């Protein structure tokens, strides 16, 4: 089946890109990450000297002990290998989610393992992004449909202008404005989403999370839905001019069914995939937005890691975003193929 084969090709493509990117990143940042490792080793060695046995040793023994320890750690972290080997090792490590340890920053549960730290924050980012994505794509599609149906009306013009304006707004800045307005001025919502509420019962917890998530959520929705409505509008306008829509009308299909049946169904493959693309495209802005609101997801981790110069964490985060991005695209293709019976090539292949 052509679709299955196509998907496999896309998947392999994504994998290849992923491996190449990780390799390049590893090669580029090996040096920086190693400097941190060296500091780490020195700290480990110093910690070892705290051992009471160490104090009792003679001076030459102490020196020897330190040397041995250092050697041990150098070997453990693989710093004794050649550059190429080290880069390959790091590539392999990254691909197996073995990002190494952070320098100072621990995870909330106290782990310094970068993969653990990221694992703890990732679900929260996904929660925020997907909720926002679902909300703004639904609003966007409905608004886009309406303005496509009334192309040229003042609603349509308004939406287009709104889309152009939001296109040039930094999402995180809108977040700051919302804090000024809704948190500082009106006191409706908390300015900081951190810390998230404790688990009492599910509904209380969900309510609490929603309350704290509200501002970042409406920020993402506000900035994204205009552009999205505009995209859907153009898509729908294109489809509305198709002959099959006229045929459906001529056949006596009720207008509501024409729009929500024929038009929307025909637009669905593109709409769904483009939603995923838009969502992926907004990851960058949303990451920064998170840190504005202190939403304890990847964005806030990014912010802290940058402030504390935690290169290993930043590398880990970069890997995770690249990964999400690449496989999000494959997923988009998968959905496209599922929704469009004609499919042999996905949207990403055609764009």
């Amino acid at each position: 089946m052509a679709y299955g084969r196509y998907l496999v090709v896309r998947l392999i493509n994504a994998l290849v890109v992923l491996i190449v990117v990780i390799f390049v990143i590893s090669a580029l940042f090996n040096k920086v990450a190693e400097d941190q490792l060296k500091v780490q080793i020195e700290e480990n060695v110093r910690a070892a000297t705290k051992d009471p046995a160490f104090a009792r040793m003679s001076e030459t023994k102490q020196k020897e002990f330190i040397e041995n320890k250092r050697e041990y750690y150098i070997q453990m972290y693989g710093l004794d290998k050649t550059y190429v080997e080290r880069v390959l090792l790091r590539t392999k490590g990254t691909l197996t989610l073995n990002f190494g340890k952070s320098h100072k920053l621990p995870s909330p549960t106290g782990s310094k393992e970068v993969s653990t730290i990221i694992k703890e924050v990732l679900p929260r980012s996904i929660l925020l992004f997907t909720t926002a994505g679902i909300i703004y794509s639904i609003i966007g599609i409905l608004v886009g449909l309406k303005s496509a149906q009334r192309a040229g009306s003042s609603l349509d013009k308004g939406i287009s202008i709104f889309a152009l304006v939001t296109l040039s707004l930094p999402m995180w800045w809108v977040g700051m404005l919302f804090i000024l307005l809704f948190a500082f001025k009106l006191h409706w919502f908390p300015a900081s989403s951190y810390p998230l509420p404790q688990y009492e019962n599910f509904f209380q917890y969900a309510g609490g999370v929603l309350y704290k998530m509200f501002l970042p959520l409406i920020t993402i929705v506000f900035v994204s839905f205009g552009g999205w409505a505009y995209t859907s509008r153009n898509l729908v306008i294109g489809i509305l001019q198709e002959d099959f829509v006229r045929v459906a009308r001529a056949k006596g299909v009720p207008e509501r069914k024409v729009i929500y049946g024929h038009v929307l169904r025909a637009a669905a493959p593109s709409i769904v995939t483009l939603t995923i693309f838009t969502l992926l495209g907004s990851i960058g802005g949303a990451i920064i937005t998170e840190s504005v609101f202190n939403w304890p997801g990847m964005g806030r981790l990014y912010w802290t890691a940058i402030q504390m110069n935690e290169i290993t964490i930043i590398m880990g985060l970069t890997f995770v975003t690249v990964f999400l991005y690449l496989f999000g695209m494959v997923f988009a293709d998968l959905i496209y193929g599922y929704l469009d019976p004609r499919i042999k090539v996905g949207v990403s292949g055609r764009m």
Partner: protein
Amino acid sequence: MDEILNIENLKAYFFTTRGAVKAVDDVSFTIGRKQSLGLAGESACGKSTLAFAILKMLQNPGRLVGGKMVVTGMDITDFSESKMRKEVRWKKISMVFQGAMNALNPVYTVGYQMAEPLMYHKGVKKEDAMEKSTDYLELVGLSPDILTRYPHELSGGMKQRVVIAMALLLSPDLVICDEPTTALDVVVQAQIMNLLKRLKKELEISTIFITHDLSILAEVVDRLAIMYAGKFVEIGDSIKVYRKPVHPYTQKLLGAIPKLHEDLERLEYIPGTPPNLIHPPSGCRFHPRCPYAMDICKKEEPKMKEVDADHFAACHLL
């Protein structure tokens, strides 16, 4: 002979930013039961617009600005959109669209799209509707198993047959075929034409046949209408119009076809440019290109005159 369609002084304009495009301007004609009318004219003279105007389905910014339309004795001029949908479209008048390649929604199966008119007009269940569709598929020479297929899995000719079957589904009184064979290759064109000829004999329907292939028209249609710049210039018994055209434009049009089976592209060879429909020429709209143009032609619009039994034309020469 009872009248299926009676059109009087129909006007359909497109109100664009540059001005009103008078795509159909003061057109009158009637079609009787089992009768078929051929409609020919240069590209952009308003043929498709006329077809859509009859269904009251003009695309924006098109509007019906005048005239009267009676379908099987029913005056539909003031019918509302929903009344048109429930009582006229597809039930009384169905249409085979120009460029049927795109007439099928790519994301629905052929079966579903065929079933739709039955579902919405007769309240038939989807399964039963599919069942009924098979009869019509057989009628147009297709096997029923394509019901579950998607449009892109069919050839152009098959799609065209599906579209024709779909148009016949509710046994309408009138089927408008808007260039049903363009975009098909010659062999398939011939097959479709034969199919249409056969159907015309077998079924009790009237047809309006819009085509670029004037040569075929004579064989298929009973009457022939020639349109120029939004107006009918000649209409009548097809043999008469074809053999003895009286309007200079019709003569040019037929003269421009040296052999059979050469398509209307040739019409581009008529000297002069097609008229601007926003500011059409005064008097007879053909006068800038007419070799016989006289002074009066620029000033006064010629009226339809009967030149023979069932043969009318609008020209000051007559």
